[in-house]
């Protein structure tokens, strides 16, 4: 099975060929590297930019205004912060011009911990991104969704923030991308750039399809009746694993889209279980999960058997390099299992 980096690459290839994507650009995304996580290797419209994040976002906005369809990369979300006012501007351009101008553009950026990246390669961006109206925000947790969400993002008329959980980029999927060859070695030979001289290398793309995951639609990753766990990105597979190892009958929802998000799916599940735990790894103060907790209280209070809970990253200035520091800063399997057990056992 393809890993997430390969899945994104294949979706981008499909989008260049079939969805009108004109430019895939960012720092080191063109030849020879194809992106620091290799998710952009071999793509015909990929090009290297100056090392200038504001320039990258500005270029994406200008291209979109001009009628092109750009996919821009910010190399690590840790470096997207100096573009915030441009992201706000991209988010308000349609609104400010009462619908005259819309920006069909995708910004993708690797997020989160998991590679021992220390202060500036471990940041999350979901809490900040969800503070910027006018963007659609997606975050896959497996290769098939990564593919399908990218297809939808490249069809959008509005700006889409595509958050790539960097800890999962090398993890292989459980379900194939429609069109990918059954043999992983063969896939690698076809689409992974070789080591050494790449100047003559061209990707051999499999025959791909427009498999799309609609933006705004969650996925029940594991059905259950005892409690609901809602997550996305790196922590999602950990939630599934925690459900399996604790033996709890937990329903795990992969949100996939943070804006718009699938409230109906959460609501149905919480009505059934009466208990809900939100899990993500961004810092916990003014965290997106806090919004979900608030909405749960507002709309589902009388369905609840226990207070809605949030397990998120610690509100610390950075994630320290040492293993013990990273583990203590963002939710790990043990933390999630423990939070689920507590919630399942909670009684007035």
């Amino acid at each position, binding site marked *: 099975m393809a890993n997430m980096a390969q899945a994104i690459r294949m979706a981008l290839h499909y989008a260049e060929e079939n969805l009108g994507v004109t*430019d895939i650009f960012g720092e080191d995304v063109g030849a020879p590297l194809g992106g620091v996580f290799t998710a952009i290797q071999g793509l015909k419209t990929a090009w290297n*930019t*100056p090392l*200038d994040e*504001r*320039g990258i*976002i*500005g*270029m*994406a*906005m*200008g*291209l*979109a*205004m*001009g*009628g*092109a369809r*750009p996919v821009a990369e910010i190399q690590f979300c840790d470096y997207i912060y100096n573009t915030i*006012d*441009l992201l706000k*501007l991209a988010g*308000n*351009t*349609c*609104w*400010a*011009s*009462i*619908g*005259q*101008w*819309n920006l069909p553009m995708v910004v993708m950026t690797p997020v989160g911990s998991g590679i021992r990246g220390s202060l500036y390669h471990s940041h999350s961006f979901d809490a900040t991104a969800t503070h910027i*109206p*006018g963007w*659609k925000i997606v975050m896959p947790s497996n290769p098939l969704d990564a593919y399908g969400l990218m297809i939808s993002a490249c069809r959008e*008329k*509005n700006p889409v923030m595509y958050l790539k959980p960097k800890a999962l980029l090398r993890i292989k999927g459980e379900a194939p991308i429609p069109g990918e060859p059954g043999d992983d070695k063969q896939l690698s030979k076809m689409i992974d750039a070789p080591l050494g001289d790449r100047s003559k290398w061209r990707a051999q793309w499999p025959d791909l399809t427009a498999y799309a995951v609609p933006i705004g639609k969650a996925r029940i990753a594991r059905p259950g009746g005892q409690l609901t766990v809602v997550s996305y990105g790196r922590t999602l597979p950990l939630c599934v694993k925690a459900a399996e190892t604790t033996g709890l009958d937990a329903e795990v929802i992969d949100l996939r889209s943070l804006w718009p998000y699938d409230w109906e799916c959460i609501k149905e599940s919480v009505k059934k279980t009466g208990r809900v735990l939100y899990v993500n790894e961004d810092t916990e103060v003014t965290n997106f999960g806090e919004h979900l907790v608030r909405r749960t209280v507002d709309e589902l209070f009388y369905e609840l058997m226990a207070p809605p809970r949030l397990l998120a990253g610690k509100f610390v200035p950075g994630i320290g390099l040492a293993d013990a520091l990273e583990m203590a800063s963002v939710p790990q399997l043990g933390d999630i299992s423990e939070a689920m057990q507590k919630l399942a056992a909670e009684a007035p």
Partner: protein
Amino acid sequence: MAPRERKLKAVPAGPLVTHSDELPLDKKLLLQMHELMVKTRVLEERLIAMYKSGHGYFWIGGPGEEAFNVPLGLLIKKGRGPAFDFLHFHYRQSGTLLAMGEDPINSLRQMKNTATDPYSGGRNFAGHFSKRDWNIVPVSSPIEVQYAMAPGTALVQKRHGGDGITIVTGGDAGTAEGDFASCLIWSSRPGNELPVLIIVTNNRWGISTSYNTQQSAARLSDRGVAFQMRTKTIDGNDPISAYLELKEAMEYVRTERKPYLVEANVSRLFGHSSASGANYVKEEVDCITQFEERLEEQGLLSKKDAQAVREKWNEQIADMARAVKDEPQPDPATIFDHTFASEET
């Protein structure tokens, strides 16, 4: 310790036309420019009056820049899509819009934040234009962001071919922002030079901070030199010089498909905005008075003619202001409208 004000005088633009010469543009164009300059001034004065009498919350605009903004508007290739010029403006561009043929009533609507304001539906400040049919991208308040976007539309135009170019404007103080440097870098990548006319209107002020206390470049246009760009500092208070210089710069960008940086020295005649009072400043060159004197010298326009032009627009724009008074305010139920473009648009 307070920074000492450096006595650095504005570098005068190279003389393209001298005052004693016969004017190098034909009479019809000269009078057209004059009328548009007056019309723009009258519009701005009306906007200020509306602000001062409680018919608007904030005023910012372009009085003092008419001699530059009007010729710019006359030279723009107006239309929609990459075959036409893309316009990334700041908030002092009313003269350019009027020269392009825009109806001044729409500025009054935006000042009064009516639902009929075609630029922003009552959502944004005066002077924050947006007009997709003419490739005018929404003017926004954050200083200099338009310089980061301009290379994007220019790249589309370079690929498209033809002679459509991207034009970006902003003030001198804003060039201290990184987005100005981004524009220079992205417009001049080796082998990927872009058709952008990069304009800085230098009125030598931020809000209350003078250029001389913050930036040491004698000419802002020199900043383009490091990027192998053609550059020029021009007299933006003289519409004839502005017209000829802009024409030359635009022809270069249209045919060579490469960037050109123009710095235009201009006046700021009513201060920064309503926040600083919006009162007429006597100490700066008034481009309209100066132009009228020249036209009179050449026997092209009498004082009486000039007065008649002013009165005509005073009356017409006052009528428009009366009409706008009764137009509806936006419906509060619409606050979420256009957050996203719908699939049908």
